[in-house]
C-alpha cells in the first residue's frame, strides 16, 4: 500500500506547503507564490493519476498498445491557463495596492485601513 500511494502523499505535502504559504504569510507576493505552488501541486496530482504502468504519451503511433489517460492532461492544460490568468490579475492588483498604500504587507494595509475608519 505504501508503494502504491506514496506519490500522492508527496503531492499532498506539496499542496499543503503552498496552502500554508497563502494563509500564513502577510506579504502579498509570497501569497501569490504560495497560490501558484498550491495550484501546481494540484496539477501534479491530476497528472499522476493519468499515468498507466507501461503506457506512453497519448499520441497515437503504430505498435503502441497502451497510452496514458489523455483526459487529465486536457483538464490540466485548461487549469494551467486559469492559473496564469489568476496570477496575472493578482499581480496587477498587488501593483495597484503598492501604489495606493505604499506597502504590500497585509499588516500595514490593514493598519492603514483602520486608521482611515
Amino acid at each position: 500500500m505504501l508503494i502504491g500511494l506514496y506519490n500522492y502523499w508527496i503531492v499532498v505535502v506539496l499542496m499543503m506547503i503552498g496552502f500554508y504559504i497563502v494563509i500564513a504569510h502577510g506579504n502579498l507576493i509570497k501569497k501569490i507564490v504560495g497560490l501558484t505552488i498550491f495550484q501546481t501541486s494540484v496539477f501534479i496530482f491530476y497528472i499522476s493519476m493519468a499515468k498507466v504502468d507501461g503506457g506512453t504519451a497519448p499520441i497515437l503511433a503504430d505498435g503502441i498498445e497502451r497510452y496514458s489517460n489523455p483526459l487529465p492532461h486536457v483538464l490540466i492544460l485548461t487549469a494551467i491557463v486559469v492559473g496564469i490568468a489568476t496570477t496575472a490579475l493578482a499581480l496587477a492588483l498587488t501593483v495597484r495596492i503598492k501604489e495606493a498604500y505604499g506597502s504590500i504587507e497585509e499588516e500595514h494595509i490593514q493598519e492603514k485601513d483602520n486608521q482611515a475608519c
Partner: protein
Amino acid sequence: MLTHLPILQVIVPLLAAPLCIFLRRPPLVWLFTLIVSSLAFVISILLLQQVMASGTIVYELGGWDAPWGIEYRIDALNAFLLLIITAISTVVLLAAQTSISKEIPKEKHMLFYTLYLLSLTGMLGIVATGDAFNVFVFLEISSLSAYALIALGKDRRALWASFQYLIMGTIGATFILIGIGLMYQMTGTLNMEDLSTRLPEVAQTRTVFVSFAFVIVGICLKLALFPLHLWLPNAYTYAPSIVTAFFAATATKVAIYLLIRFSFSVFGLSFSFTTLPLQILFMVLGLSGIFVASIAAIYQTNIKTLFAYSSIAQIGYMIVGFSVSTVTGLTATLLHVFNHALMKGALFLALGAVMYRIGSVQLSQFQGLGRQMPLTMAAIVIGGLSLIGVPLTVGFVSKWYLLMALIEQGWWPVAVLIVLGSLLAVVYVWRLVEIAYFKPQLVGKESVKEAPLSFLIPIWILVMANIYFGIDTRLSVQVAQAAAQSLFGVSP
C-alpha cells in the same frame, strides 16, 4: 433555433463581450450590453417555459454524447436560476450608465461593460452546464471578472477587498478542483449525470467522502457561508454600486445552486445527508450565520456594509432551508434565492442612487433624505420590510415556507430562532429608517435632488416585483416547487 436555446443562453453574452472591444464608445457599449442582457433574459424565459412544459432539456456540445463530450442539462432548477440571473442583470444594467458615470473614469467604461458581460457569462455557464469540470472553468471566468470589477471601486480599499476576495476565491476554486479530481479518480467521469449513477457504487470509500468535503468547503468559500464570509463585506462595500447590486443579487445565488446541485444531484440525497452529519452542521452554521451577521450589521455605519452583512445573514436562511433536506425546505431555499435577489437588487440599486446624489452611503449622510429623495427612500423602506419578512412582500413568502419546513420536521427551537433572527433585521433596517425620516437634514448641507429616472425606473421595477411576487406567488412557488421535487425525484 429553439433547440439551441441552452447554448445560446451562454454564448450570446459571451460573444458580446469581445464585441464590446470593437464598439469602444461607452453609450453605444452600454446600449449593446443592455440589449444582449435582455436577449439573454428572453432566452431564459423561453427555456423556463420549455422546461416546465416538457421536462429536462439536454444539449450536447460539439455533438459528442454525454460522458465523452460536455453536455448542457437544463431542468427546472437551472432554468429558474438562469431566469433570476438574467432578469437581475438586465434591470441593473438600466441604471448602469448613469451610475458609473460618477464612479468610474470614462476611459474604463468600455472595459467595465466587457467585464460585466464576462461575469454574466460565467454565472450562466456555471448554472447551465452538466459537466463538473466545466463548472470550474466558468467559475473562474465569473470570478476573475468579479475581482476586476470590484477593484474598479473608487476607494483604495476596493483594491484590498478585491485581493482578499481573489485569494479566498482561488483557494475555494482550487478546493473544488481537488474535489472534482478525487471524484473523477473514483469514477472515471466528469459528467454530473454519469457521476450520480456511478458514485453510489463507491460511496463508502474514504476518497469519495474527502472529495465531497472538498467540493463543499470550496463552494462554501464562494458562498460566503459563515465563518468563511470574511471577504464579502469589504468586497460589497467598496465595489462600484452597480457591481454590488449585480453581485449581491446573483453571485451567492450561483454558489447556492452549486451546493444544491452537488449535494442533491451529483452525490445524491442519501449520501449527502445520511453518511455525513451535514444536516446538523449546516443547521448550526446557518443559524450562527444569521445571528452573527445580523448583529454585526446592527453596528455598521456604512450602509453598504450593513446590507452586505445582511446578505450573509440571508444566506444563513437559505442554508437552514437547505439543511432541512425536505421538499418544503428546498422550496423555501429556492424561493428565498429568488426573493432575496429581488430585495437586495432593489436595496443596493437604491444605495447606488444615494451614492450618485451624495457620493457617500454613510449612515449620517442619510439624515433628512426621506424628504429629499422620497422615492428612493421609499424603495429602501419597502426593500427593508421585505428583508424583515412583512406580509405582502416576498420576504414573507419564503419565511413562511421555511417555517413550515421546520415545523414539519418538528424542529421548533430552530423555528423560534429563525423568527428571532428576523427581529434583528428589524433593528438594522429601522436604524436607517429613523435617521432618514426622523432626523432633520444636516445643517449647512446643500439639499439633494431625487435620483434621476434612469435609477428610479429599475429600482421601482424591482420594488414592484418585491410586492408583486409577495402577493401573486404562483409563478415563483410553482417553479421552486417543481425544481425541489425534481431534485427529490418526486414527480410533480
